[in-house]
């Protein structure tokens, strides 16, 4: 029990009527949407502001009282249960939508805002918040962030992590920080990404900056009815295999079809063995063609009937039924338990057969309603919680189902989280080392362990091996070179002159180690840790100019020879690659199956630029290009990583499935960490179907004001460009083209859709009184590659990358001199400018940075000659959350051997 003194202090913070401590009231807080585990908090407080949350957390921290945040209590894994008692912080009163910025497609909301209220606030003006968990009518944005919630439409639009740009959080010691983007992307570790999906164990999120999407112009929603579950399952793979990405692809078996029909009679076929709800969305042009293609596939795979929803009424009836599926189970049995395993989607048919067998073996009823397109199963086990024996069988069956998912290369949870429910399963999915890495991430945020304790991670097992003690072995370079020679074959070790090619900022390492296997990478790192060497991981070298000069640089760890493996699963649309694989090589291979990895950072997709970027390098630098606008950046495409940590252990995060929330996400933290936390050795990424057509409309503008007008209209239009680029006259000149301001809009997709967009883009230009021409594909590709090379940096140039709100791009331009080449991904707010590397560079950079800062943005020097770096602040001022970054670095690289001093804040 909390003492009367603590209760009094809580009351002083939030008001006495906002503290609940009577046992007969607390009882309703003992569980959330997962009712098998129960735990009562000792008090519940309902703060009204971030400040009140912070004061409550500070009090808890001071008094060593555990605390946990709670939203609507709709979680399905017991994530908000107060398993160690203490204080539950209910954020339901913090439910205001604070700002809506449609031009830049974002909204600032409090954590207690109900998911669907965000969409409701902007839907009249044609926008929406994309993640739509079935609980969206009740669940809160804060809760969605904790669980990294998905939903039916994540197949196309991604999960919460792809739609939360930044967040305000109260750290477990009561400090309030802002993580992630505000109005420009600040460099540093992706702590925002780490927090999303951390199940409320890293702190209490109080506000979020969420991304809004344009509501699709058109929908085609189909209901396909099957007499065999297998046929329905195979349809799923067939649709995706054909390169069609529906917005949602949902499946329901007979048990659910009947329950849903009882609940809301939404027109499913009662006697079906399985139904698929397939939704296509996007632009009207080309939509009928896609819908016909899907109908044909369904029929080919044995659908008894395929019905296209005739109007919005029929469409919403189908979704109304689907979203109420779980709730409707109450009609079938007193209790139910939903599993949330994920499998590669091509495995749906065999896995469902095995699930049915498990149900028979345990004498249980199991129904299925799930996100088939994602391979995210939801077997729902029906039972009566008053029957102890049945409960035991339910838990055993659940265990078997999840083990089955793991055995198929999947995960134990796609969107519900680990919570208290699946802690016991964690060791079946992760090694002790994987879990230890997650613990390190957690400890960087919550060293005290008071924030939502008892969740996600099982208690650590005692270490079997003695940890590496950094710098334990002494001796000069001869001794460690000799030790290295014992690990690597001679051709994998270069010394002396041979190492000059991997010099960084004029510093040449003693040696370049080029391991060919993950084991060798780990061995090299272990050795480096023991000798306390300064190690810079290197790939193609495209980003070598980034960051401060290394404080110490003994050994270059080249990943270029770790490139043997490309495991492409076309039906899954995923590929697993070694870190040293080059992007052009990968895309050549994927193209054979009609797919590509939609990343195009400057130089990386250009075989003539040092052979193209390596996957490891792209991920480490979080490098992206124009296609991020439509396809997302490396973080959005990354599914799993294998990382060699500074102590030489290899750990894995994520899984080879498109949806997975098991454990803390190291993938997002390591992406963009510039090799300062560990070395990326292998990655699994999502790939996309190659577009049927790509066309580019180039609009010549008389001046930047014209360009701003075009961009303004494009941003507010229904166009869905793949690229939206802005180039200034000097940059055009560099490309050997007629100098002028140009806005180039590229469109990818089905030929019909692209043609419609091209016509609309031309019309848009005409309305602005401007001339628009279509560039031939070879011309636009050459231009893009030329611009890419232009910003890779030379000894004569300084390249800066500014990030501002898309609407502020035109306001940033006056900060640059007219003769400096400028290239912007205008709708992303990313602007690159090339300055001469002369005596004025430092002053010019700081002026440009001031201008960016005045617009709420940031500016980073991506490349500069070594001689200038001493005068340049390459990263700009450190963020207020730098303390967390330092803690993270300390946990993962305590000896400071990885890229010492190069990252933000000289980490």
């Amino acid at each position, binding site marked *: 029990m909390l003492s009367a003194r603590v209760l009094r202090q809580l009351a002083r913070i939030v008001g006495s009527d906002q503290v*609940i401590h*009577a046992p*007969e*009231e607390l*009882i*309703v*807080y003992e*569980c*959330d*949407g997962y*009712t098998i585990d129960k735990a009562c908090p000792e008090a*519940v407080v*309902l703060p009204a502001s971030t400040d009140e949350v912070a004061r409550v957390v500070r009090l808890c921290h001071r008094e060593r009282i555990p605390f946990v945040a709670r939203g*609507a*209590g*709709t979680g399905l894994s017991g994530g908000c249960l107060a398993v160690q008692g203490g204080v539950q912080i*209910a954020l*339901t*009163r913090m*439910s205001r939508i604070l700002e809506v910025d449609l031009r830049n497609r974002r909204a600032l909301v409090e954590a*207690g805002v*109900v998911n669907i*209220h965000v969409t409701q606030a902007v839907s009249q003006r044609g926008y929406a918040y994309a993640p739509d968990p079935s*609980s969206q*009518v*009740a*669940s809160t944005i804060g809760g969605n962030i904790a669980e990294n919630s998905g939903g039916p439409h994540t197949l196309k639009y991604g999960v919460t992590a792809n739609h939360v740009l930044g967040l305000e959080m109260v750290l477990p010691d009561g400090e309030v920080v802002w993580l992630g983007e505000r109005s420009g992307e600040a460099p540093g570790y992706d702590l925002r990404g780490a927090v999303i999906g951390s199940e409320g164990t890293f702190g209490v999120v109080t506000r979020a900056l969420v991304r809004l999407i344009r509501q699709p112009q058109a929908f085609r929603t189909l209901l396909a009815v099957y007499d065999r579950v297998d046929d329905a399952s195979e349809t799923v793979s067939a649709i995706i295999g054909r390169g069609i990405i529906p917005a949602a692809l949902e499946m329901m078996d007979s048990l659910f079809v009947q329950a849903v029909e*009882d*609940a*809301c009679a939404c027109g499913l076929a009662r006697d079906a063995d399985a139904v698929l709800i397939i939704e296509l969305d996007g632009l009207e042009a080309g939509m009928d063609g896609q819908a016909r293609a899907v109908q044909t596939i369904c029929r080919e795979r044995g659908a008894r009937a395929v019905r296209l929803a005739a109007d919005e009424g029929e469409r919403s009836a189908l979704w109304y039924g689907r979203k*109420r*599926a*779980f*709730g*409707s*189970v*109450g*009609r079938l049995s*007193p*209790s*139910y338990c939903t599993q949330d395993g994920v499998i590669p989607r091509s495995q749906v048919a065999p896995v469902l057969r095995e699930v049915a067998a498990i149900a028979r073996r345990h004498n249980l009823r199991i129904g299925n309603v799930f996100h088939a397109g994602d391979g995210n199963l939801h077997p729902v086990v029906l039972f*009566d919680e008053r029957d102890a024996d049945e409960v035991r069988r339910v838990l055993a069956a659940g265990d078997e189902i999840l083990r089955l998912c793991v055995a198929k290369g999947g995960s134990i949870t796609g969107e519900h989280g680990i919570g208290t429910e699946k802690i016991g399963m964690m060791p079946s999915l992760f090694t002790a080392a994987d879990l230890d890495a997650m613990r390190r991430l957690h400890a960087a945020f919550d060293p005290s362990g008071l924030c939502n304790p008892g969740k996600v991670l099982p208690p650590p097992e005692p270490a079997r091996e003695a940890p590496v003690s950094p710098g334990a072995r002494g001796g000069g370079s001869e001794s460690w070179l000799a030790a290295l020679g014992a690990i690597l074959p001679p051709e994998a070790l270069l010394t002396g002159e041979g190492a000059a090619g991997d010099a960084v900022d004029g510093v040449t390492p003693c040696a370049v180690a080029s391991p060919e296997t993950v084991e060798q990478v780990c061995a090299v790192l272990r050795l480096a840790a023991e000798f306390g060497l300064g190690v810079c991981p290197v790939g193609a070298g495209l980003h070598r100019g980034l960051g401060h000069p290394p404080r110490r640089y003994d050994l270059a760890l080249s990943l270029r020879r770790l490139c043997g493996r490309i495991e492409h699963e076309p039906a899954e649309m995923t590929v697993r690659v070694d870190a040293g694989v080059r992007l052009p090589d990968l895309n050549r291979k994927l193209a054979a199956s009609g797919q590509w990895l939609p990343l195009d950072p400057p130089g990386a997709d250009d075989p003539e630029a040092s052979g193209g970027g390596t996957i490891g390098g792209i991920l480490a630098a979080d490098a992206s290009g124009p296609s991020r606008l439509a396809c997302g950046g490396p973080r959005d495409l990354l599914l799993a990583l294998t990382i060699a940590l500074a102590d030489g252990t290899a750990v894995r995060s994520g899984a080879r499935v498109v949806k997975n929330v098991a454990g803390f996400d190291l993938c997002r933290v390591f992406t963009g960490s510039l090799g300062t936390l560990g070395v990326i050795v292998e990655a699994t990424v999502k790939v996309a179907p190659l577009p049927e057509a790509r066309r580019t409309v180039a609009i010549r503008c008389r001046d930047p004001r014209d360009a701003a007008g075009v961009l303004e209209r494009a941003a507010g239009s229904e166009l869905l460009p793949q690229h939206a680029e802005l180039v200034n006259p000097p940059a055009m000149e560099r490309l050997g083209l007629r100098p002028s301001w140009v806005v180039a809009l590229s469109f990818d997709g089905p030929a019909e859709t692209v043609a419609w967009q091209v016509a609309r883009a031309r019309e848009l230009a005409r309305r602005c009184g401007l001339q628009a021409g279509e560039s031939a594909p070879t011309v636009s590709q050459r231009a893009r590659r030329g611009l890419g090379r232009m910003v890779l940096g030379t000894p004569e140039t300084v390249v800066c990358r500014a990030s501002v709100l898309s609407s502020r791009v035109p306001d940033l331009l006056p900060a640059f001199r007219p003769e400096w080449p400028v290239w912007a991904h205008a709708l992303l707010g990313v602007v690159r400018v090339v300055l001469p590397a002369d005596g004025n560079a430092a002053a010019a950079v700081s002026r440009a940075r001031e201008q960016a800062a005045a617009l709420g943005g940031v500016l980073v020097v991506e490349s500069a000659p070594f001689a200038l770096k001493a005068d340049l602040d390459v990263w700009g001022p450190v963020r207020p959350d730098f303390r967390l970054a330092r803690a993270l670095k300390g946990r993962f690289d305590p000896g400071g051997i990885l890229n010492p001093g190069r990252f933000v804040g000289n980490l």
Partner: protein
Amino acid sequence: MKRHDDLLDCVHCGFCLPTCPTYAELGREMDSPRGRLYLMRALADKRLPPGATVLQHLDLCLDCRACESACPSGVKYGSLLEATRAGVARAGARPLRERLVNRAAEWVFPEPARLRRLVGLGHLARRLGVGGLLPRRLREALALLPPRLPHTGALPERTPARGRARLRVAFLEGCAARVLCPEMNAAMVSVLARSGCEVVVPAGQGCCGAIHLHGGSREAARRLARRNVAAFLAEAPDVIVANAAGCGAAMKEYGELLADDPAYAERARALSARVRDFTELVPELPGFTQGLGPLPARATYHDACHLAHAQGIRAQPRRLLAAIPELQLVDLPESDWCCGSAGIYNVTQPGMARRLLERKLHNIERTRADIVVAANPGCLLQIRAGVRERGLEIEVLHPAEVLERSYQAGERP
């Protein structure tokens, strides 16, 4: 154990939370439908004694049943709450003051003479300027009273249909409406007659018993139900029209309420099967649109809880209003959100009732409507009082009154 099984229908999904007015105001789980069901279950499982704190949360429920509309599992929240309240009443756990308020309401409302006398006293208090000295609950009740009591011409026992009689309708005139808004009743009868209904007002009718049922006095409710079963079936009507949403909902459930009474079960079911709300019946009557004249105004429709949530009647009243020429119908934000009237709620829970009224008025003002239409006398009184208090130029009318005006406009040369 039947009740307990029904409690297990709740799978704790939480879909009801954002639809619950008290949860939206307070953000507390105990004041949400899911939380209350959890408390009811704890009471049933004897994990909790029926103490004052638990009761306070059960009593704060408006019984608006918005949660039933939202519930995918079909939890019968309203009847579970009534059963629990009845159990609590039997256990004698309710504080004396609460019991007195409930008993007083049950004593006053069913008897027009008592209600009229009380209203007269209220007006007197207001005139003497001593209203401010009264306890808050009475003050809130007083504020609801119309400035002048409308004239009390009783409804004729039988009103013939205009033209050929197509239906014989028995009309429930309602205890409070009879005294507080008789013009609404008159309009309903007139509209029904215009649409070819012969309307009878059974003399033996009385209170429907909803107040008793919601307050946990189940036996009293059953007594009243029996009286109405006898009185209404004696008229052999085709349809029984209830003038108030809550009364209609209660009468539609007589079959269930008297299911274990062998003498009445069958007749109660027969009665329930014939009950229609006024707004439910009229759009079904052929030719109700004939003779409607123009009514140039901007109107918005408020869903009474016991129409929208308890009876699922949402589209029909809107259809009815849409038929009126030149009446512009605009959406009311949170139209199916309780206005705080909820039977005798503004007497038992004046604080929450006030907050919900403010919320409703705020939404009404946003529509810039000239007329707010609500198909329930409780809502009419509540919203009228609010409009009066804020000094808004907005009329608050029952659909029947709007229709009657439209017909009258149609009759003008």
